[in-house]
């Protein structure tokens, strides 16, 4: 698939936006998913997510973008009665094969949820939670990990003097960045973000977007968002989904200025959704 990029300079000019030249890290092939038997939430989804880029999933509510996201770290496994067909692989390895250890996968694929969910413990404890459950015991090593994760999440300067305070005393935006730091502490390859700023005020949102911008060099980020401006601002590639189907996946600049599909155009111009 060759994509013709006409409007490359109009948006995020510095990014490469040729999908075919990207190295694929995560790939799905013909994924079908049913929460209830016979009702397909995902229909034949095939997508190749590029490495160390920000990929945004957009689409109307209930289109299955969050569901697809949760397939990538197998959070959907917890839901009773769910069934999935098709292939999802990371670095060419099928993540649904029985040899895959769930804990290893989730260490590799971090997740930030829509509602910030810091644990009711200290800030340090929150960030160290992941490394700790994954077997790191030494305090010095943990300290180092916590510090670097908090720095990457742009939170270090705000909390470095009160690492033992309860995480619940932080503001909403800080809590969400703490959750990002918590995911980063596991040194993941991929970070899944499920509408990470949907419950935040504009200032906190822009801080989160800045954080994402800083992380794009080292991590593959997949972000689900309702906010099309946000998708346009932060992502390199955007996938538009509707009623469980992958309608269009393209460079963000292309998708928002010159979509290939009529449906995409209708959606981004606000004719529905």
């Amino acid at each position, binding site marked *: 698939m060759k994509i013709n990029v006409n409007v490359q300079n109009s948006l995020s000019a510095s990014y490469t936006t040729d999908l075919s030249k990207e190295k694929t890290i995560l790939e799905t092939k013909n994924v079908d998913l049913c929460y209830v038997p016979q009702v397909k939430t995902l229909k034949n989804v095939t997508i190749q997510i590029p490495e160390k880029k920000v990929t945004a999933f957009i689409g109307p509510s209930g289109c299955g973008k969050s569901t697809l996201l949760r397939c990538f*770290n197998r*959070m959907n496994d*917890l839901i*009773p009665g769910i069934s999935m067909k098709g292939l999802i692989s990371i670095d060419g390895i099928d993540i649904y094969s029985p040899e895959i250890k769930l*804990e*290893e996968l*989730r*260490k590799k694929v*971090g*997740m930030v*949820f829509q*509602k*910030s*969910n*810091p*644990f*009711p413990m200290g800030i340090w404890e929150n960030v160290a*939670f*992941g490394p700790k*459950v*994954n077997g790191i015991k030494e305090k010095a090593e943990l300290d180092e990990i916590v510090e670097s994760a908090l720095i990457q999440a742009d939170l270090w300067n705000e909390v470095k003097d009160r690492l033992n305070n309860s995480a*619940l005393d932080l503001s*909403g935006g800080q*809590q969400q960045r703490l*959750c990002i730091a*918590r*995911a980063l502490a*596991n040194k993941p390859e991929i970070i899944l973000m499920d509408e990470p700023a949907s*419950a935040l005020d504009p200032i906190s949102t822009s801080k989160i977007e800045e954080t994402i911008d800083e992380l794009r060099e080292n991590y593959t980020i997949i972000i689900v968002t309702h906010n099309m401006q946000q998708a346009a601002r932060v992502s390199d590639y955007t996938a538009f989904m509707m009623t469980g189907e992958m309608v269009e996946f393209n460079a963000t600049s292309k998708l928002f200025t010159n979509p290939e599909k009529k449906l995409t155009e209708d959606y981004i111009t606000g004719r529905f959704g």
Partner: protein
Amino acid sequence: MKKIITFWKKGDSYILLTAGGLLFSLAMVIFMISIILIKGFASFYANDVAEIKMKDNSIYLAEILETEEVVLQSESGKTYNQKQINIKIANRDIFDQDFKWINSNEISKIEYPQNVTVFERWEYGNLIAYVKNLNYNGKVYQTRDKDFWDIFSSAFEKSEENKSEKENLEEELNDVLSPISEIQREISLMEINFPWKTKEIEKLKQQEEILQAEINSQIEQLNQKIEQKVIENSEIYATVQAGDGTEITLPLEKVYRFYRPNDMNFISKSGLYLTRIWEFLVEEPRESNTEGGVFPAIFGTVMMVILMSIAVVPFGVLAALYLNEYAKQGFVTRLIRLAIANLAGVPSIVYGIFGLGFFIYFLGGTIDQLFFSSKLPEPTLGTGGILWASLTLSLLTLPVVVVATEEGILAVPKANKDGALALGATKWQMIRKIVLPNAMPGILTGVILAISRGAGEVAPLMITGVVKLAPTLPFDTTFPFFHLDRKFMHLGFHIYDVGFQSPNVEASLPMVYTTALLLIFIVITLNLSAIFLRNYLRKKFKTSAF
């Protein structure tokens, strides 16, 4: 009229109705608690003793307790009101009863003489009398003598000292005798079980004789000393005169405490009051539980509740965890939940019977046969004891703990659980680090409810190990310190036993009130400590306000 109709239609009447319901319930609770409080605390107070002269010239020395008006019928068929007074005449050994109702019309005079003395005795309850004289050190002291009461006190101390010395000597004697009784027991066991081993029996008998010869002089000496103490104490006695003029010789070693209530001021009475409360809490019961303290019952109750909590909490929490976190939700889990909820409604005596049949006869009996067969037919664990009673109660309170823990677990935000799993935690790590700490307030609620239910339960205990009077506490300084096979005393059973099974119900009434008060107090204390702990944890784990 219209107003009334609108009043009903608007539903304002239901405000009154609901408020009335609440008021009624509150009033009943307050009424009950205040009765127990007043009666319980009043019973420690040293009442003044009145000398009541009757019109027929009989005299009572007694505490006036209450006045009651009764309706009587005269010979002509007319009814009339009559005031009656309940007095505590004490002196059970003389008058056969402690209490008496007298007719207030027949009283000619009531006085409060200074020199009336109340003796609390080790046996037969109180003695109220005038002291005539005292025999001490071979001399006779009269009441009018100078320093009479100081001498009386020192005589009393001396007799107490003698008594405790005598008890120590007796204990010593027991220790000396114990190897012999051990051998004698062995001989009798051999003779019953292996009568053909005559050689061994002979050998044991020889050993016994040697031992006997060795310690004979020691025994002789100890017996002499004891004898001496007995004689010494028999020479310390007071002559007292009861209200009706009977003279009694009262050896002071039979006295537990004496005081002259009419001669006491408020401060010394308060002192006596506090001393009595203290004694009630720390001493052993006397006189088939109607007097003395309730310490063994307090100890038994608290220890049983703690044992029960230790047994029930881990099981209840684990069961609830499995039911909520691991089990596949569906028909079976619903059925199990229903069964657990219903278990909470099973009458407690049914649990008691189950405990008797399963724990004591089956488990205890089997353990006895396997490990304590040398002591059979005397049961070790095959009889009621604090262990089996606690286990029975933990079974009884298990549903409460399971249900409360489940609620606690359900209250843990799913976002936190997902968050932990998304960070690569295993399910057990997630449960241990997220679910359990967050569910702790719920678990503690379960513990609180279990304690409230368990501490007040009596029926199942009566057949699984509670006794009227336990000779020893279930805890002492000999290895292994906690003797879970021992029978124990319990405040709830104490109330039942003293109040309804004692030969002298009226004399033991104060004991019933004070024990009830204490039981309520202990339950409240246990509950409060659990509630404080829960609130502390709640604060710590308050969920995000965001």
